[in-house]
């Protein structure tokens, strides 16, 4: 056996707050968020990059936290589902998911909402194909995806100020 890798003290910038965390080299960003910081909104399902449940935004771009090492993501702006809304006020994307019933068991929702947020920041009026392309890495076993598509469309409309 090789020598046991030592823990390392790193700084993670999550939801605009700096956290000091002692992690081992093989600790994934997902494990750091959930087990070390207690931010359990980010979910682990497959753990191998197939389902999209563990999506977080790094500098506004969606990545899979289960395939990222915590030590590789020091001092980058990480946004998890906990940091999305301000207080009780839901963002247009979150609100659209709620009112359209795009949430059933809710396990895929954090990833879906974050990816949708990233998509709408980059492209405020996506076509159905563009939405499908952006969310293709997210598995949902409950809703059949149609309600999610409706929700994304509604969120896009609301963000563009076409709806009150």
């Amino acid at each position, binding site marked *: 056996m*090789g020598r046991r*890798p030592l823990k390392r003290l790193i700084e993670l910038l999550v939801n605009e707050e700096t956290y000091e965390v002692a992690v081992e080299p093989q600790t994934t960003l997902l494990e750091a968020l959930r087990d070390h910081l207690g931010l359990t909104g980010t979910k682990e399902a497959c*753990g191998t*990059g*197939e389902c999209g449940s563990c999506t977080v935004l790094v500098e506004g*771009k969606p990545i899979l936290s289960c*395939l990222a090492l915590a030590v*590789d993501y020091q001092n980058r702006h990480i946004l998890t589902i906990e940091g999305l809304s301000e207080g009780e006020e839901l963002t247009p994307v979150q609100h659209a998911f709620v009112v359209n019933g795009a949430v059933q068991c809710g396990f895929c929702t954090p990833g879906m909402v974050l990816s949708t947020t990233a998509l709408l920041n980059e492209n405020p009026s996506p076509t159905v194909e563009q939405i499908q*392309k952006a969310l*293709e890495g997210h598995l949902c076993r409950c809703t059949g995806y149609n309600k999610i598509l409706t929700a994304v469309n509604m969120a896009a409309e609301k963000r563009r100020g076409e709806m009150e």
Partner: protein
Amino acid sequence: MHLPKFEHQSPGTLKEALQLFDEYGPRAQIVAGGTDLYPRMKYGLLGPEVVISLKGVPVESPSTLGNGELQLDALMTLADVVRSSVILERAPLLAEAATNVASNEIRHMGTLGGNLCLETRCTYYNQSHTYQYVAPCFKRDGDRCYLIPKGKKCQAVFMADTVPALICLDAKVETQSKAESRQVPLKDLYTGDSLFPIALSRGELVSKVIIPKAATHRGSGFTKFSLRGGMEFGALTVAALLDVVDDGMTCATARIAVGSVSAKPVRAVKAEAALTGEKLSEGLLREVAKKVAAEVRPVMHHGYSAPFLRECLEVQAYRTLTKAAAGMR
């Protein structure tokens, strides 16, 4: 799922990384995006003692060399490849292929170089260890193939999407090790051996991708066939590139490359020859598609039988060629 234990190194420059790679030798594994490596490590398929992460190495933006060649940093993420206006203009075929890789999240992590160096895959190998409950297969240093029960060799398939596109573009790669840097045509990077698919020596990595200057009148097409149509490795990927002379009809050079058919991507050379010097027409493209299917012999993989893939290849090749001919500019 947890990663096995390892020591982590994060060099700030490529030079430092190569130095470390050389120092640690076979105990180390280089990782760029990690989207192919970490799942395999989680499955227990490999466990390097040291992981040298390239996340800290700065990425260069695409540049044009003196002779008009387009030079790309292998560390560019696939999402950046899709977004890059230079690539969209100069090599739209690569951008289209890159859009087809995995999912949006993976494209934001995975790199171009990493896609070129993808490990070959098989239904039985890319699983947690318990899946092979009798005895290990060739890839696990065993003596059997689960896919083809009396098979004498490993049949794992090379499934990277960008490679057929880059082969059509006649791309070269620059590889670097601590001692030297060399340029090889991309097609020579693949050995055709499922167990050691990438022809890189110990301590060597792909650092640059170089695409030659495009012809004036060029059309390209790319299709990826998979069951779900998204977030999946392709059952077949076909890339085609047609350069025509000034009349816009007569084919000057043709390139057709097919991926996910064997341990390396295959060029349909005979089919290309049937296009050269001919006027493009629907009939000709149908005939050429037949030739592609006859020439490239897909092996069965991931639940697709070989006869199915052969028939499928003819259809996909026709669609790709039609796209290429329609998108002529």
